[in-house]
């Protein structure tokens, strides 16, 4: 879902989002680095503060501890905790060399002779002090030395809440500044990328959505874009020209093909017209000779009537074939009758057996346009006839049902050559000299959204065309 939405997003937006994401990543990495540096700097500061407090006490306490002077130790701790900078000292305790408390700033918590070890918990030497989030104090334990000899220990609990608060506020300020910088960079990235990609966007919009023909890029738009892109856009316009020219050529070729089809039928159709003419002329002679015999005249007129009606049907079918491409007529039974009238003489001429099986359901058939389907059927029949050869077999079937319209053309010829197959089934360019009949079938079927299948069963070649059901107004 997200991937689809991402792919459908305009490329400029996608690049800008990617740029923004990279900036955010950069911001995060930078923030992490700075926070880490800040943290180590603050730890150093913390150690300095701790060192200054502990250092002073150590100097003051050394000799008192050596003499185990309880009062002086207490006095020193009490004064250190109550005077000015000592506000940071929350608690302190001093032990002698036996590990017993001599005095502490809070005798209720650590009375004289209390077990010093029990007070230590997580206390660390001053050089290992670090500020950890969520704890507002640090506990430091340091040895007390007199002339290099350890005479006792000092435990100090320092209030570092101000340092931590400072660290928090600095971190927040930093994150806020980084967020703003990241946002600005992302916006700047979007603006720059959008500007750089404007020609691409122009190209994309003129290229059109699928099914919509690409449009020329107006010259004034090209003038406004980056000069580096101008040749590309000019080339695009040239390509559009070339595509238009090709379309026009194809259209003319398709038109010509219709006449080619008729041309291929012309000989048969001429015979179809010529053959009855002998009979008709005989009938007129008979009428002239036996004008006084009403029964002979009547039967001759019947012959004349049938012959002329046949001629009328043939000429109507030819006229219809010519007229169809200019009309928007819908497909009907008569179209297949016309096709039979046109094609049957050709089959007869080659002594071919023609199986004709048409039962289009009226409402479904009328949803299709007449002209392209007549063209598809006629081209396939002519192809089948020439493949079947003298005395061959050609079959045509048309069935309409709820799924659409199925056409089937069968012959007992040798089957499709590779070139013929490509013309009918693929989009590969048509090689010169091969004719365009089959390729035209393919294009017409594609335009109607249909499919073509070619199969060989026994000695029969079957071409199956399926045209999906369509709304009548399509």
């Amino acid at each position, binding site marked *: 879902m997200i991937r689809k939405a991402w792919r459908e997003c305009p490329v400029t937006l996608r690049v800008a989002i990617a740029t923004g994401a990279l900036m955010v990543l950069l911001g995060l990495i930078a923030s992490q680095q700075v926070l880490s540096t800040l943290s180590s700097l603050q730890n150093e500061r913390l150690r300095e503060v701790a060192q200054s407090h502990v250092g002073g006490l150590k100097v003051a306490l050394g000799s008192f501890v050596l003499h185990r002077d*309880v*009062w002086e130790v*207490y*006095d020193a701790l*009490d004064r250190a905790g109550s005077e000015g900078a000592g506000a940071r000292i929350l608690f302190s305790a001093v032990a002698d060399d036996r590990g017993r408390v001599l*005095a502490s700033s*809070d*005798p*209720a918590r650590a*009375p*004289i*002779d209390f077990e010093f070890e029990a007070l230590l918990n997580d206390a660390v030497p001053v050089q290992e002090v670090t500020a950890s989030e969520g704890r507002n104090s640090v506990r430091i334990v340091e040895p007390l030395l007199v002339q290099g000899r350890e005479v006792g220990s000092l435990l100090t609990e320092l209030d570092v809440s101000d340092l931590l608060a400072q660290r928090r506020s600095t971190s927040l300020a930093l994150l806020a500044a980084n967020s703003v910088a990241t946002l600005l960079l992302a916006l700047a990235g979007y603006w720059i990328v959008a500007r750089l990609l404007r020609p691409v966007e122009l190209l994309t919009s003129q290229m059109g959505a699928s099914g919509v023909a690409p449009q020329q890029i107006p010259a004034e738009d090209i003038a406004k874009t980056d000069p580096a892109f101008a040749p590309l856009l000019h080339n695009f316009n040239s390509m559009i020209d070339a595509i238009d020219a090709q379309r026009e050529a194809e259209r003319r070729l398709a038109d010509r093909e219709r006449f080619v089809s008729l041309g291929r039928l012309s000989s048969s159709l001429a015979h179809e017209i010529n053959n009855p003419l002998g009979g008709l002329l005989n009938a007129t002679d008979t009428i002239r000779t036996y004008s006084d015999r009403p029964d002979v005249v009547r039967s001759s007129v019947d012959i004349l009537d049938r012959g002329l009606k046949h001629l009328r049907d043939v000429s109507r079918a030819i006229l219809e074939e010519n007229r169809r491409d200019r009309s928007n007529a819908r497909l009907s039974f008569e179209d297949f009758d016309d096709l039979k009238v046109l094609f049957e003489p050709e089959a007869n001429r080659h002594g071919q057996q023609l199986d004709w099986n048409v039962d289009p359901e009226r409402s479904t058939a009328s949803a299709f346009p007449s002209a392209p389907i007549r063209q598809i059927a006629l081209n396939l029949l002519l192809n089948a006839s020439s493949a079947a050869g003298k005395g061959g077999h050609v079959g045509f079937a048309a069935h309409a049902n709820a799924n659409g319209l199925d056409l089937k053309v069968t012959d007992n010829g040798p089957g499709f050559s590779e070139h013929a197959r490509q013309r009918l089934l693929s989009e590969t360019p048509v090689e010169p000299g091969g004719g365009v009949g089959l390729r035209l079938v393919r294009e017409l079927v594609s335009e109607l959204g249909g499919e073509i299948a070619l199969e060989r069963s026994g000695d029969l070649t079957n071409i199956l065309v399926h045209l999906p059901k369509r709304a009548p107004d399509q």
Partner: protein
Amino acid sequence: MRRRDFINSAAATMAVSLPFVARAAAPFRLGLTPVFLDNDALIIDRLRSSVSAAMGEPAVLIQRRTYQEITAMLLDGSVEAAWICGFPYLQHQDRLTLIGVPQWRGRPLYQSYLITGAGDTAKSLADLKGGTHAFSDPDSNSGYLVTASDLARAGSTPVEFFARTIYTYGHRNVVRSVAGGLTRSGSVDGYVWETLAQVEPSLTQRTRVVARSEWMGFPPFAARKDRAASESVRRFATVLKSLDASEVGREVLALLYLDKILEGEESLFDSIKLRMADLPERR
């Protein structure tokens, strides 16, 4: 710097007006035991300057951490006179003489207080057995002798009776020790405790007086007997006893919460003598 300037200019003035004194040259040296507000530089300075002005010669006030040091300085002549405690005075009565006894609240007497933390339920010394205890100084009457002799009368000693004893070398420190919870109880000069109750009530409010001793002679000013007749000692004794007569002197007395300095009599210290009798090793 300022003080030295003052001393120099005062000396110069006196050299003009008091040629005899100027020839005496050496300033008058007074030893002070840390009787009470030993941390109060203002009082020390006022006392020095008023004594100096009244005597017409520069005076130097000398403080030491322990009573013993001041007593030793008095005995070896390092100071001409000293404000000491009745206990060391009696210890060296054969070599010392009284030159004045302060009068506090109408009498030259004071008491020793036995104090505990404000929340402590002890009703007498006996209830404090096994606790920690703060003494002021081993040579202090109120800050040691009274409690030690009380224990001796009960057949005990501080070391046996208390789990631990410490010396704070200052009566105010005894109050701090008890108020801060460092020790459960303490022996303190009643005059100091009462004065602190006025100037630093937040400190004394955290303590409670469990027992008060009998009235005893107030810590006296003393000089060596063989120097008592010297000009400077006699003049100092006169100045002391006439402090309440001058404005500056009354100011100093007011700072010390004292009425005046009396002549004083040996008999004032009889009760201390009785207690000393109970501690034969400290006589």
